[in-house]
């Protein structure tokens, strides 16, 4: 499909959350296909034992029409569904040029402390994953961020110094992309 055709496509962002069980993705995507919808980018995650998925869906006439198309799966799998028509578009990815890993004894405020400092130094977060490792008595928080250092890596590195005495480890790795 040509890019100018793609730009005319109206995408809805469909978010589904529910208890994880086999068959949800197959059930939902089959209904979307039979309902005349197409998929763009999707991201499925299991968070805390819950099933979560966000899907770019085109071909639905309205938010309500999309809700109707997926309603059998929503009922069957007891999902919560949310639909946005938020002007999503394909090929809108920035390529990350830095990866930041943060870990330390879990305590409230790790993410807020670090991300606010990094953001002030020009970090545009493109991808973020976190988990709680360690034991229940001694939990360890691990955070990994892919981002774009919009004001240069040196500025970000300098900002790390101010985070050094906060009780967690933080490392920055420049990311290069090889285009062959």
């Amino acid at each position, binding site marked *: 499909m040509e890019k100018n055709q793609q730009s005319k496509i109206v995408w809805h962002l469909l978010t589904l959350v529910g208890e994880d069980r086999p068959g949800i993705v197959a059930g939902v995507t089959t209904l979307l296909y039979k309902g005349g919808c197409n998929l763009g980018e999707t991201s499925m*995650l299991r968070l805390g034992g819950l099933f979560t998925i966000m899907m770019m869906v085109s071909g639905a006439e309205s938010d309500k029409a999309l809700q109707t198309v997926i309603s059998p799966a929503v009922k069957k799998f007891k999902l919560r569904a949310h639909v946005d028509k938020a002007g999503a578009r394909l090929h809108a*990815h920035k390529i990350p040029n830095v990866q930041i890993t943060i870990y330390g004894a879990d305590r409230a405020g790790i993410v807020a402390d670090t991300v606010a400092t990094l953001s002030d130094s020009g970090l545009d977060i493109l*991808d973020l994953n976190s988990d709680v490792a360690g034991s229940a008595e001694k939990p360890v928080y691990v955070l*990994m961020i*892919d981002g774009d250092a919009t004001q240069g890596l040196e500025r970000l590195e300098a900002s790390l110094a101010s985070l050094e005495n906060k009780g967690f480890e933080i490392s920055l790795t*420049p990311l290069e*992309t*090889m*285009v*062959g």
Partner: protein
Amino acid sequence: MTVLDILTYPDERLKQVSLPVVSFDKKLKDFISALEQTMDAGPGGVGIAAPQVNKLLKIIIVDVSPMANTAKKRKRRFKSSNHGRLILINPEIVSVSGAEVAREGCSSVPDYTANVERPKLITVRAMTAHQEVKNIECEGFEARAVLHEIDHLDGKLFLDRIISTRELFRRKVYS
């Protein structure tokens, strides 16, 4: 200046296996020159393979100098060997060692980049345009670029070798 059209996936021709070069004649020299110019005309590309321009011959060109220059400008260590412009005919991987993950893109797969695991150090044996056989040791991004381009000769794309970033994350944390 000759800039050849680059095939983009899902063009089936990208999935075909290329044939060894047997004639080292003027036609080959002219084609290599056009392939070089095509690579240089692309934005940010550090490699190209003949099948990407619809020539099913085992020829690749790799030159990671643009990445090395960027690293130098940013005062970053460039984690790679750099032999300058490598024109490799009938290349074969002789040995590999180590492994590392880095992000790759491809001019035949526009608008997409992903993490790919590749060997860190390789030895590639290939013929030059003057029919000399050479063994070249490549490391880091140069090794990655050579392997990426040799994959094209085998009808493979980096899409065949993607590693999930989330998988990478979990492996880093727990293993």
